[in-house]
């Protein structure tokens, strides 16, 4: 049996027992947490409506494929599937935009396909870089950000290459 099918039920049981052992009202805690989860969803839904519309339009027009084909020689060399080209550019700028592109890729190719998995791992292993930098440095009154942006973008690029590499190494080939 696949270990990850065991992960979910075992983790639930462990967290429930561990919480009870620590005297936490786990039922209250899970309801409160679920409420926070719902709040996150309500925050992303309106953004996703606009963005998924644009992403679906781009895909249907054929522009997305063209973009992937144009970048294919470069991306092939890095081991990144060209289908994910648009993700590389939206991911550092907009979290909801990347979620829109990623879920379109997973829906079109299947969540358990090579491209679907690479898109999922890319989403899971990178952040909305520019937003994070703006929030952190903005709140600290820093306007000379020096090398923070190039270093962070280098980490993002590594994350994209590593996502495709990790799926090929640990799960499946293209």
């Amino acid at each position, binding site marked *: 049996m696949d270990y*990850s099918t065991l*992960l*979910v039920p075992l983790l639930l049981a462990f*967290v429930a027992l561990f*919480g009870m052992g620590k005297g*936490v009202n*786990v039922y209250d*805690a*899970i309801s409160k*947490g679920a409420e*926070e*989860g*719902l709040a*996150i*969803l309500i925050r*992303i*839904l309106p953004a996703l409506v606009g*963005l*998924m519309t*644009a*992403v*679906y339009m*781009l895909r249907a*027009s*054929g522009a997305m494929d063209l973009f992937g084909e144009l970048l294919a020689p470069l991306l092939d060399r890095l081991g990144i599937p060209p289908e994910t080209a648009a993700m590389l550019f*939206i991911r550092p*700028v*907009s979290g909801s935009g990347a*979620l829109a592109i990623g*879920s*379109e890729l*997973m829906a079109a190719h299947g*969540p*358990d396909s090579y491209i679907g998995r690479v898109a*999922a*791992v890319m989403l*899971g*292993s990178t952040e909305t870089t520019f937003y*994070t*930098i703006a*929030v*952190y*440095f903005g*709140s*600290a009154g*820093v306007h*000379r950000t*020096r*090398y*923070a942006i190039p*270093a962070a973008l280098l*980490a*993002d690029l*590594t*994350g994209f290459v*590593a*996502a495709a*590499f*990790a*799926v090929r190494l640990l799960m499946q080939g293209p």
Partner: protein
Amino acid sequence: MAMAWVWTGMVVLSVAYGMLNGTIGAVGNAAMEGAAAAVQLCLNMAGVMCLWSGVMSIMKACGLMDGLSRLFRPLLGRLLPRACKDPETLAALSGNVSANLLGLGNAATPLGIQAVRRMAVGSGGRATDEMCLLVVMNTASIQLLPTTVAGVRAALGSQSAFDILPAVWLASALSVTAGVIAAKVFSRFWRR
């Protein structure tokens, strides 16, 4: 405002390319489909997202976040030695890292901001090497359970929504390492 340009660009590009390519009919249908897909996706992933947020909040109530924080102090002391001399900054930093690991974005950001503000005192609006390193570590996502992505995969009918975990961990670890090395190398010659 930046997103307004990106969004307008995406829409105008699809219409223009659709006209050229003769796919404009499909573009119109796709616009409707996309909007519906967004709501459908959110509804389908709502259950998983709420469940995991709930589990995370139990973990937080159990003091798991504080436990993780203590675990990270030695590593942080080595990466950010100057900031960690101040115990309150160290507490905020280790809280920030452990909240990120547990995927508690709402808890991680205020702690990170608190740390970076303390580190910024007397820097005159110039990011120090340690501040750059902290921000780079925060832009490279390090999350033990990427629940949003797992929610999307489950919503789209994945056989095992969490089977990507080892791949996510490996990719995150490589990306954080690359970020830290890049920051260390840049700090050598980026004097301004």
